């Protein structure tokens, strides 16, 4: 833990130095600009330039990082006193499965659209990480994106990414045609019916789990 704290502080300190340098940068199209020129506190009697505030904030970050390193060496901060490893095998595996799942989810959004990506991610998480029964995982991972679709895309017309063009033509255009024509009552009914199915599956899953 102590080494991790120290290394993180060093990395963040280097990042702060980069930010300080970056703050002094001028606009890309201005070829005559001299680096650091906009970090002054009072330029042309009109107050600080655009780089002033970020520069000193980054300096503040650097100072804080050095202080953190100092504390870490002197063992005055809680992480530097703890003998626990920064990341044990479990944490590494968790990051790989859950974090990797999230990254996969994001990549899938651009290919198979938001709602199908949600279905795949939910199914993966519940079945492989949560060890839930197959039936419950399947139904939940279909009902949740369906609810979100009804709420965001249909009721609130806040459309989510539709993925590749063929996904859109194959699924979303017909579905939009169907649900947008429905009255509010029928949409509420959709919520209730799918909710009832989900509740029924969850109950029977619990019962078999107990038995």
């Amino acid at each position, binding site marked *: 833990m102590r080494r991790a704290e120290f290394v993180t502080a060093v990395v963040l300190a280097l990042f702060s130095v980069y930010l300080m340098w970056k703050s002094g940068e001028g*606009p890309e199209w201005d070829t005559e600009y001299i680096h650091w020129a906009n970090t002054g*506190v009072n*330029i042309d009697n009109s107050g600080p330039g655009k780089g002033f505030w*970020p520069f000193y904030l980054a300096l503040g970050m650097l100072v804080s990082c050095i202080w953190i390193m100092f504390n870490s060496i002197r063992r005055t901060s809680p992480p530097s006193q703890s003998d626990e490893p920064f990341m044990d095998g479990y944490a590494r595996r968790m990051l790989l499965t859950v974090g990797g799942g999230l990254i996969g989810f*994001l990549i899938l959004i651009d290919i198979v659209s938001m709602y199908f990506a949600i279905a795949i991610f939910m199914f993966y998480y519940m079945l492989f990480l949560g060890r839930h029964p197959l039936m419950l995982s399947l139904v939940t991972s279909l009902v949740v994106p369906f609810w979100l679709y009804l709420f965001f895309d249909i009721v*609130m017309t806040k459309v989510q990414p539709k993925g590749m063009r063929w996904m859109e033509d194959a699924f979303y255009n017909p579905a939009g045609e169907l649900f947008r024509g429905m009255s509010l009552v029928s949409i509420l009914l959709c919520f209730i019916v799918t909710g009832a199915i989900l509740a029924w599956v969850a109950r029977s899953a619990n019962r078999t789990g107990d038995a």
Partner: protein
Amino acid sequence: MDIVSALMDGLWIAVQPHNLALAVIGVIVGLFVGALPGLGSVNGVAILLPFTFVINEATSDPAAPMIFLAAIYYGAMYGGAISSITLGIPGASTAVATTFDGRPMALKGEADRALVTAAVASFIGGTVATLFFTGFAPMLSSVALDFGNPEIFALMLLAFATFIGLGGDDIPKTMFSIFFGLLLATIGFDTISGEPRLVFMNEREQTALLETFGGNTDAVPFFDSVSWFSRGIQFLVLAIGVYGIGEMLWTINASRYKVTMTETKISFSRIMRGIVGMKDCWKGTTIGSLLGFFVGILPAAGATPGSLMSYGVSKMTSRNPRSYGEGNPDGVAAPEAANNSASTGAMLPMMTLGIPGSPTTAVLLAGMVIWGLEPGPRLFEDRPEFVWPLIGSFYVSNLVAVIVNLAFIPLFLAVLRMPFTILAPVIFVLSIVGTYAAYDNMYDVWLMVLFGFGAYFLRVLDYPLAPAVLAVVLGATAEEKMRQSLLLSDGNFAIFWNPFFDRDGKGQEWWIAPVTTWIAVILIALPIILWGVRRMRGGAAAEARG
């Protein structure tokens, strides 16, 4: 009295069956819109704006469409607390302070009490603010005019001063978090110079990178960094990343898949007990109601500094400040009373000056304009038949909102009863869908998840991240106001602290900025001085022992 009879007429119109029904529907819609992280009241009101045409045709009451929109606004303000408490994700910047104590309460198994406290405190805050609004609207509108750039900056300083103490014991890590949040707020277009700042991987850097690795430099730019970074780091991107992803990863790791959420019971008597228990939170509620309203009526300040300052003040004046952050109901009541009070307060400059104090009131303003109303100093005189029913509906909406909210508490608590292995993916999904819904942009979704991973590592190493989240909200306004003030003063910082500084123009209240600045400076310096004193004493004691 004139106001009283006008208000009575307004209330009478507001409780007409069709308006009451609209208020109920609006509050329910708002409650869900506010409870889902990301969607928030801005989107709720904006999306449902065209729907008001349907209402107008159905009712032919000029006030009905606005009553509906105001009800959504109120419902969303109540709903914000729900995701803060049950999921631990603040759905809007105004609800960040609610997570500080609301989340620990939920983890202790007092989620029902936290939700009841939030609902009742919101009701009190909203009603107190509406009373002020009714009585003093025209008078208070001039207060907003007295707050120019230096005054708003001084107020921002004061807000910072109150959250210095929020970070915990590790001073350098808290400092890092604040600086980092403020720095994130500077990314994007700078209002004053009109140029982009801190655009990472811009053409220059991309070319350098390609040259280093011997790539084909004709391919520049291969990465559209301008669109990505010039829009700035949005508040929710960091907030949802930190709470929805980072905190969740941390919890999964800490609980090692075993723990389901704590037991949550709900019954009518428990809710009643929660309401009776509100008498212990009278101080937080009072502070929140008053401070929230005052900060809310200042344009550009908005409800976030209001809720934050109320939390800070409530903690500072508490006899037991250590219990804050561990699940003190006062720590839920203060920010919730404040953000509702401030939201009502923010309607005041919107209606009397035509200036929106927040994005949501900006959309409400657009709604009023579409309905042929011209908000401005003359609105109260010219259109009483519209103003008073609307004010009446504030009272009604508040009452409806608290009842609806209490009725829905069992449903929201059901969320906490889900096994953690179902709740966790649902929170991840809501974080991603919510971020996309808020900004219509996949860039922001990727950035949110990256922030989440970073937040996880920093969380493990004990970095407090709430200060960074709040600094992103306040940082942009603070810097803009500081630089606008310095443009006024020819770059002379005395404009902030010197009461005798000669400002251009005539009408300012000369004392506001310096007095506020000095209070803020003292508040910031105090903990540092106390800390120094303690250390010196502690050091002396250690030496004596040695």
